[in-house]
Each structure stands twice: as C-alpha cells, then as structure tokens.
C-alpha cells in the first residue's frame, strides 16, 4: 500500500502510461480505497482533458508572404552591411588601426619639423654674439674650445699661465677693480666737504 503523498507523486506517470507494473497495482489499490485521492485524480484528469480540447489555431493567409518579405529584407540588410564593412575596412582589427595611426602621426611630426627647419634656417646665434665671434677672428676655435671648469683653490691664486689663448671664456673678474676705482673717486669728492666742516 502506498501513502497519499506517494499516490500524488505518481498521478502523471500513471496517466501517461509511464508507470511500472508493480507500481501501477499499488496505485490502483490506493485509488480504490482513498476517496480524497480519487477526487484529486479525477480533477487532474479533467484539467488534462481540457488542455487537449483547446481549439487549434492556424497561420493566417498572409503568413507565408510576410515571412518571405521579412527574409528578403533581412538578406538585403546582411548584404548591405557586408558591403559597408568592405568600404570602411570594418574587418581590419583595431590593433592594426592603432599601429597605422601611430605610424601616420610620427611621419607627420617629422615632415612638419623638417619644413620648419628649412624656413628658419636652423638655430641662429644672437647678433651681438656673432659680432664677438667674428671680432675674435676664430669661429672654429670657439666651437672647439673646451669648457674647463677652473676653480681657484682657497688660499691659492689662480695661475694665469694655465690659460690658453683659445680659452676665451675664462676671464679675470675685474669687477672689484672697478669698484675700488669708484671708491677712490668717491673719496676724492667727499674729502673737500669734510674740509669745509
């Protein structure tokens, strides 16, 4: 004998003929003896029958024509999309696009730089510097001059003999001398005033 719960679980298997022989016997025994389960069984049977009896619907007359039109439209759309892809290189991967763009940018940069260089004639020295170089008589030697950093050691004078004639950037700082001269003239001018006092 099976329980009401087990009976409930087997209703569809029984109605669909999917139940085993031994289980079917137990199911039918319960069906005979339990009024509640019998009511439930009949109710399920009625609902299945009502589903079977539902009227069938058929496609409308213009179904096939509409379908054909939609297929033609879709086919045209696919062809158009394929054509536009061919024109816009949509099939080319984005990495290739990136590389191409980088190459174009670099070459444009070089071309622009070259054009600008020709127009200005390169970097030019200021005119007063040019004059100095021409006055010194040796533009070449100026270019080749080595910029030695000579720092006077504390307590030792700078050896003037160590300067070569080419080394024109190293000049003796004479600003102090001028200052002293200025001081002297100042002293000369102030002295008579002191005298008056």
């Amino acid at each position, binding site marked *: 004998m099976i329980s009401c719960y087990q009976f*409930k679980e087997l209703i569809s298997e029984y109605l669909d003929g*999917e139940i085993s022989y031994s289980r079917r016997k137990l199911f039918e025994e319960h069906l005979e003896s339990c009024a509640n389960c019998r009511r439930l069984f009949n109710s399920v049977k009625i609902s299945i029958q009502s589903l079977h009896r539902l009227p069938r619907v058929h496609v409308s007359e213009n179904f096939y024509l509409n379908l054909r039109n939609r297929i033609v439209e879709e086919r045209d759309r696919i062809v158009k999309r394929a054509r536009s892809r061919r024109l816009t290189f949509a099939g080319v991967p984005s990495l290739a696009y990136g590389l191409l763009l980088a190459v174009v940018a670099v070459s444009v940069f070089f071309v622009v730089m070259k054009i600008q260089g020709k127009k200005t004639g390169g970097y030019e020295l200021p005119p007063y510097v040019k004059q100095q170089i021409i006055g010194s008589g040796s533009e070449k030697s100026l270019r080749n001059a080595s910029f030695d950093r000579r720092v006077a050691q504390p307590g030792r004078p700078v050896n003037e003999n160590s300067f070569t004639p080419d080394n024109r950037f190293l000049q003796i700082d004479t600003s102090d001398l001028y200052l002293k001269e200025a001081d002297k003239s100042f002293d000369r001018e102030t002295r008579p005033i002191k005298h008056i006092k």
Partner: protein
Amino acid sequence: MAKADKTRYKLTDEELIAMFQDGDEGAFEELVNRYADRLLNFAYRFVFDKQEAEDIVQDTFLRVYINRHAYREIAKFSTWIYTITANLAKTSLRKRKYRKVMYLSHMGPNEDKDFEIKDEGEFNLLEKDLRVDEDVVQRALDRLPEHFKTILILRDIQELSYEEISKILDIPIGTVKSRINRARLRLQKEISKVLKGKK
C-alpha cells in the same frame, strides 16, 4: 527539380535542413509548411494573442534561415526549432508582464482588485466541470509559473514525448516527470480557482 519537390515530403526534418544548408531554398519552404501551425499553437498558448504568436513564429523561421549553419545533426531539428520558439515566447511574455507591471504601478491603490482571487481551502474539479471552456483554461495557464506553463504546453498541447521535452528544456527526464506532475496538480487547482471566482 519537380521530382525533388514531389519527394520532399517523404524526407525527414534532418535531411531537409541538410539540403537547406547546401543551398536548397525549397527544403526550407517544406520545413516552414511542416512547423508553422505546430509552432503557432505552442506560441499562441504561451502569449494568448494570435498576432503576437505569428510574429514569434516568423521570428523563429527567420532565425532558422539566418543561422541555418549553426544547426548540427547531434540534435533533432524539432528540438532545435522548439527551443528557439520557446525562448522567443518567454522573452515576449516577460516584456508584456513588464508592461503590465508598469501599467499597474500607474493605477491607484484599489484599482487592481480584479486581479486578486482568494486562496481558500482545497480545490478540485468535479464531473460537472468536465467541459471547461477555453477562456478558463487559458486564464488558469496564465496564472502558472513560467516553467510549469512551458512544460504543460509541450506535453499536453503539443503532445511531445518526455525525451523531447527533456532535450528542449535541457533538463533530465526525472525532472521532466516530476515537473509535469507538479504542473498538472497546480493547473487543476488554478482551473477550479478561476471557476470559483467566476461564480
């Protein structure tokens, strides 16, 4: 070619789709003729709107036409086409439910009373309810959860085998059996509730 047209109806679905994959458009037409009504009934019981159901079936055939090369003979053609229709029907139903929710959310607090049916006691259909009209059954079907509704339409309206249903829904046969049983038990309850609400 005329001979091929005459013998086409003898071919299996799988042979027809293979011919269509090789470029025979006539094979596609034969498949449309075979499945149009079947799929329409399936979709119609799902959405209960003939125009919407026809659109779903047309979308199904359109997808078959475009994705014909996606079909592999490892599955039955019927399983493949029913799966497409079921997915489209479910999407359509969800869209409609969303629209309904949006509509209800714009209604006042007491305006949705007609949608409530009291759940009282045990419901059983009696012999006198044997001839339940279409509207009641459809309303009861609509009240079922989506997975119960799908399986009942496939089994009791489309009359597909447990094995085919198992493949279409991608669930084991054991689950198909138990789900059909639970869906039927729920349906009889829903039919009697709708009948009680009518009286």
